[in-house]
Structure formats: C-alpha cells, structure tokens
C-alpha cells in the first residue's frame, strides 16, 4: 500500500509538471518544471529499487543536463520575457500529435504489461550485477563497449566546433580584403 501511495504521488507530480512545462510562458520556469518531472522519474526508479538508475537520473539529468539547460537559457536574449502563444493551429496540431503518441504508447504498454512483469525483479539491483553486465563477455553482457560508441557523439561535437570556428589565418585574409 505504501508503495502505491508513493507511486500515485510521483505519478501526479510527473503528470502535472510535464503539462506545466509545456504550457508555461517563461522559459526558465518551464525548465524548472521539467526538472521536477525528471526528479519524479528518478523517484519512480527508486521505488523500483533501481538505485543505480536513480542516481544516474539525478546526477546526469537533474544535475548535469538541467544545469546546462538553465545556463544556456540564461545566455539567450531576454530569458525572462513571456513567450507569446503560438498560432492556434500549431497548438492544436501539437496537442493532437501528443495525444496520438499517448494512445500509441498506452496501447503498447497495456498489451505488454504482463510480459514486462516477467523482467522486473522485486529485489534490489546490485552494483556488482551492473558492473558485470557492463564488462562481462557472456550473453546479455558486454554493454560498455556498446556505450563507448557514444563517444562518437563527442567526436561529432568537437567536429562541429572545428567547422564552426573561424581560423585565425582566414580572419586575417578577410580583414585584408576589407
């Protein structure tokens, strides 16, 4: 019963704040609401005894990405100003799209909920299990090298910076031409 009460509280928090996050007219505020959504999700992980995932969610999303979000928003032009509502057809179309997404996801989850239950273990997930899943070489293991491929993303970012950066030599040439 305790778990159900906590789950409903978390679910309400997630639902309310995700709606607030998209309807708020101030960018910083909607970022804060999004933070609450992420923290609520972390709470659900904790409810499932997935402490590792909880900590990852909090440190990566709440602690890392949200800080970057907020700092990026601070750097934009006049972050405190109210954003004007979009065209009504845009609002309507996005509402229809999100409803369609909800229906699709809901349908899939409802039909597969019994299958999901088989994989959810009630007991606490040990750090050692995660470690062997990452580094081991058996079936359902060897996750880390797969994750390492995400370094590719970093390479993409570095490449983007290289392309976007003006070369000093080129700058001088432009100045000379001017």
């Amino acid at each position, binding site marked *: *019963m305790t778990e159900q009460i906590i789950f409903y509280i978390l679910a309400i928090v997630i639902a309310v704040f995700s709606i607030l996050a998209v309807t708020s007219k101030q960018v*910083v505020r909607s970022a804060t609401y999004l933070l609450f959504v992420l923290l609520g999700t972390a709470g659900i992980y904790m409810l499932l005894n997935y402490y590792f995932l909880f*900590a990852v969610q*909090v440190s990566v999303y709440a*602690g890392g990405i*949200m800080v970057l979000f*907020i700092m990026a928003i*601070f750097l934009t032009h006049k972050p405190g100003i109210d954003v004007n509502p979009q065209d009504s057809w845009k609002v309507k179309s996005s509402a229809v799209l999100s409803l369609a997404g909800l229906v699709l996801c809901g349908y899939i989850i409802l039909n597969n909920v019994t299958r999901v239950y088989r994989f959810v273990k009630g007991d606490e997930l040990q*750090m050692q299990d995660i470690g062997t899943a990452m580094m081991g070489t058996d079936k359902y293991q060897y996750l880390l090298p797969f994750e390492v491929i995400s370094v590719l993303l970093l390479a993409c970012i570095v490449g983007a910076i290289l392309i976007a950066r003006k070369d000093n030599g080129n700058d001088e040439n432009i100045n000379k031409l001017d």
Partner: protein
Amino acid sequence: MLLYSQPLELTKLVHSLDAFFRSSLSPFWATLVEGILIGIAILAAYALIALALIYIERKIAAFFQSRLGPNRLGKYGVIQSIADMIKILIKEIIHVNKIDKLLYYLAPFFVIVASVLSFGAIPFGQSLQAVDFNIGVFYVLAVSSIGVIGILLAGWSSNNKYSMIGAMRSGAQFISYELSAGFSLMTIVVLSGTMQFSELIEGQRYCWNLFNGHIPAFIAFVIFLISGHAETNRGPFDLPEAESELTAGYHTEYSGLRFGFFYLAEYLNMFIIAAIATTVFLGGWMPIQIKGWDAFNQVMWYIPSWIWFFGKAFVLMFLSLWVRWSFPRLRIDLLLNLEWKYLLPINLVNILVMVIIVLSGLTLADIFPAVFGK
C-alpha cells in the same frame, strides 16, 4: 561481548527501539513511525551540527586572524550561534519587487534539500546510518548536484545582475569541480570494489584506503579535498559570492530565513564533504585497529564510533578552514584552468594508475597481508 565492550555505542538503543516498534505496531505503521523519527533525528542533527560548525568556523577564523572570535555569550562565546539563530529566525523577510516570485521562493529549498538528502546517507557511527544504499558514494554525489540548480535559480530570479553573475560563476564552478570530485571518489571505488558506505568502512578496518592505495589514493584524496572545497563555494573558490565585486553573489536579495537556508546549506556542505572524505579515505567511524593487537583494539573500541567519525571529520574541516583563511580568491579563468588543465587530467591518469595497482596486487593489503590484510 561486543556490546559490553562498547558502553557508549548507540547500537543497542537503536536496535531496541526498532524491536519495540516492530513488535507493537503493524509493519506499515512501524515503518512510518520509524521514518518520521529518523527524519526528525536527521533534521535535528543537521541544525545542531550547523550551529556547532558556525561557532567553530568563527572561532578558528578569528584565531587565524589573531583575534579571539566570539567570546561574550556564554563561556568562550559558545552560545553565540544559538543567539544568531534566534536572530535570523525573527528577522523580517524582505519582499523584493520585480522578481520571479515562484523561482525566488523555490530556490533556497533546492539548496537545502540537496544538502539534507546527502546528509541523510552519511554513516555517523555504528548503526547510525539512515539508509545504506549499495550505491552510497554515487548517491551522495548525485543528490548533492541538485543544489547548484537552486543557486542558479536564486541568481536568476532575484532580477539583480550581481546575483546573476554569481549564479553563472557558481554553475560553471560546480559543473567543473563535480567531475573531479566524482573521479577521485571513483578511484577509491576501484580500490575497494564497492560503493556501499558500510562495506567501504568494513574494508578499512586494518588499513585506511588512503594508505592502502598509497600514491594514487593520496593524490585522489588531495584532489577530492580541493574539488570538494570548491564545490562548497568556500575558501579561495568563493567567486559566486565574492563580496568585493558582487556584494553577496547569488543570495544578495535574500533575507531572513531564506538567506538562512543558503547559509545553513553552505556550512553543512562543508561538513558533508568532510564526512564523505572521512568515510571513503579515512575509515569512517571505524576506530584505529591494528591486526593482532587485541588489547589495543579493545581500548580503541571503548571510544564510541561516532566520536571517531566526528573527530576525523573535524580534522578535515579544520584543514578546509585553514585553506580558506590562507589563500586569496582565484580569478574565474584561473579557477577553470585549475580544474580542466590540472585536476581532471591528473585524475584520469590517477584512475588508470589505481587500476594497474589493484590488478597487479600492489596495494598495501596485498603486499603485507599479515599487517593490513582484511
């Protein structure tokens, strides 16, 4: 035998309380009552430690500056911080115009909640730990990272350019130094093979991690102290509240209890950093034990474990205060230089060295199993 030999330990009290609630209430209500009691105990400890820390800090700061510090209220001014607390509780909360009200009122809670959450997972002594996650170290790192959002929101919602600059500096500083703090703790996780605080402490019974991992552990310890110090916005790293340039930084517009939250969290974060360093590097609440010297070990156990814990943490806090009152404030570019050009690369190499040492069996426990082995 053990209980008889540890007269001041709180283990027995905690266990008998637990047994009492389990026997007299249904499981749901027993959990609820125990949860509430633990919550009250943690909040009370939080406030009391903050009060003690404020007094200690003022006294030590004064001694470093050849002053006497608070000495009027009570003997040696010991109840000065209680008077200050009463003052800050009854102070007027000044309402500021043209702020983002919601975020302005929300921001101090982020800071204090992050601080309390990480405070709750610290092992203060034998069986004096509220939760013992199997990801203990990682959990503390994760929840303490929420605090910086409170600082950023406080700076932005105050609608004040000094607050804003302070908040931006704080954000940049926190994100940078969190990396180093995390990596240096991970170095020790590599050494001890666990993230759980209780296992970390048990593994350090005969040899602290600081000595067990010798060179890389010592480097990790120094890096953790530096980056932890920077994360708490203190000492030479207090740019977010550099009073000479930013009045008070991100909490310029806060007053009364809301300012008190920031103030409290700052002091407690210092304690939390010291407590984590104690637990991870210096053996936590475990008394000094030497293999084979049973009589000596028994005498050491007579000193209760929480005194060991607070004693070790106090030494680290004294170090932190010593650094704070010794060095001038860093410039922002030098601050980021220190992290990204020095601490982080050294840290990454350090982890590699630690992995090699552990794999090739060069830790002290491996070399001298008769003296330091588990």
